[in-house]
């Protein structure tokens, strides 16, 4: 696209860097913003720049937070001895959306997958084990994805918990035949042939 203005070009480029936004949509947003009051556009710009500058990770549960400790951890009305273990902050949002869970959370940051360079040390597992002792947590609900790697993560955390009075439960899980798995990637049922080897070189008989 050819723009008569460098300013428009810069804004379009900014928007089109967002997931799912192409050049055409980006231009539509920019032209829309041009028609707005200056205050309105300043508000959007401020929201974006302050987001990155001021957002924190909760030092207790690793959820996103405006303060040192997040609003869920700070809520005394929530059950303090029950912790739901999730992979990402999106899982926290999804579970909060249901309004069914009244305990606390712990965000691991993923599941164990050495093939992807993610070992236990790359996840917030040590801090979870620390929390169990420090906060006298009695119940863990493992809400990680029902995959092989999710299973590994549950097994691993269970092994790391030394206090036998801590109960570990999982959400209802299907057979751990991960939906993300494809036999084509993992298993070969036939030979891959580079050079063909003759069936027999034997012409004696």
């Amino acid at each position: 696209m050819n723009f008569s203005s460098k300013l428009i070009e810069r804004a379009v480029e900014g928007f089109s860097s967002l997931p799912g936004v192409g050049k055409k949509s980006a231009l539509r947003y920019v032209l829309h913003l041009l028609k707005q009051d200056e205050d309105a556009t300043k508000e959007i710009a401020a929201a974006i720049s302050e987001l990155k500058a001021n957002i924190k990770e909760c030092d207790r549960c690793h959820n996103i937070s405006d303060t040192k400790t997040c609003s869920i951890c700070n809520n005394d009305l929530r059950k303090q001895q029950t912790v739901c273990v999730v992979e990402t902050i999106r899982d926290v949002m999804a579970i909060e959306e249901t309004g069914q869970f009244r305990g606390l959370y712990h965000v691991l940051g993923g599941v164990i997958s050495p093939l992807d360079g993610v070992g236990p040390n790359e996840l917030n597992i040590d801090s979870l084990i620390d929390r169990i002792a420090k906060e006298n947590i009695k119940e863990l609900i493992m809400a990680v994805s029902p995959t092989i790697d999710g299973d590994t993560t549950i097994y691993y955390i269970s092994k790391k918990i030394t206090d036998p009075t801590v109960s570990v439960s999982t959400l209802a899980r299907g057979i751990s035949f991960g939906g993300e798995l494809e036999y084509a990637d993992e298993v070969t049922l036939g030979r891959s042939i580079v050079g063909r080897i003759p069936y027999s070189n034997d012409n004696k008989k």
Partner: protein
Amino acid sequence: MQINKLILNQFRNYEKATLEFSDQINCFTGLNGMGKTNLLDAIYYLCMTKSNFNQSDKHVVQHEKDFFRLEGHFLRKDKKETVAVKAVLGKKKIIERNEIPYKRMAEHIGLFPVVIIKPEDTLIATGSSEERRKFLDNTLSQLDQDYLKHLIVYTKILKQRNASLKDFAKRNFYDEALIESYNEQLVEPAQYIFETRKTFVDHFHPVFLKYYKIISKEQEVVNCKYVSQLLENQLQELLIQNKDKDKYSTRTNAGIHKDDIDFFIRDFELKKFASQGQLKSFILAMKLAQYDFLAEKGSTKPILLLDDIFDKLDTNRVKQLIELVGRENFGQTFISDTGADRLTNILEEVGLEFRHFLVDNGTINN
């Protein structure tokens, strides 16, 4: 089960082609490199969701093109069914059964069973143990969806376990809890695969013996024995015993990925003592027994693909094999051969109904 029509689009050396098949015997003849094997591979692909010859779809798509499409019109259990493969390079390929795409391609395996016999099959006897496990896996996955599931799960856990052992070695540390987590996860799929393979080899043996006798015309006793560490010990225990070895070698030394089959002729190890002739008979018997087994125990009779296997055989043996295959218990069969006349002469002599396709560099005449 049979395939009545095959439509190829930019598949290997075929720009566009449509073939209509006989429900009995179909012959593809032509010079080497003209695309006979590619036609067999197209049928194999529709049944197994993958090429038998190259693992990567990069090599399956026609030169300098970016997609291919295959469509097969099947008759399965008296019902017309369509299977289509659409592969665009760099994208996830789509397999459709009756116009409904699969979420998991693994679900397709076994519904349209297929057996391919090809020159490289002698490696089942002479190659590494991996060749024999692939023979087992190919057969059992087409018979049992749960077997394939457990195999996929086992393979994935094993890769993760090996990756973590390598990672430990690199960082000079060891996390026992992680290895134990993988150990526990391996037990269930390993046990299922072990038991299924063990039962299979027991049941397979008499069928195999029957075909060996027909093909070799010999009365010598041939034997196959399933070899697995799990015959001696539970996997959990084996993994503990191999803890240090695993640590130093940075891979997993115990499990069903070490399984093998030992073959014997008159108590002698086939690999070391068989003549070329015995070897050839042995492998043919194994593959025909595989067909028989799938036809007997599977959902429907497989398609049989014979790729270039008559190349080095004398006319009498070819005739004998065709007579065997032409008998009623074998279903629809596809044969590729370089010599056009030899094959059709034999078929006429034996009195079998067949359709003949002349393959010439991506074009087909019949």
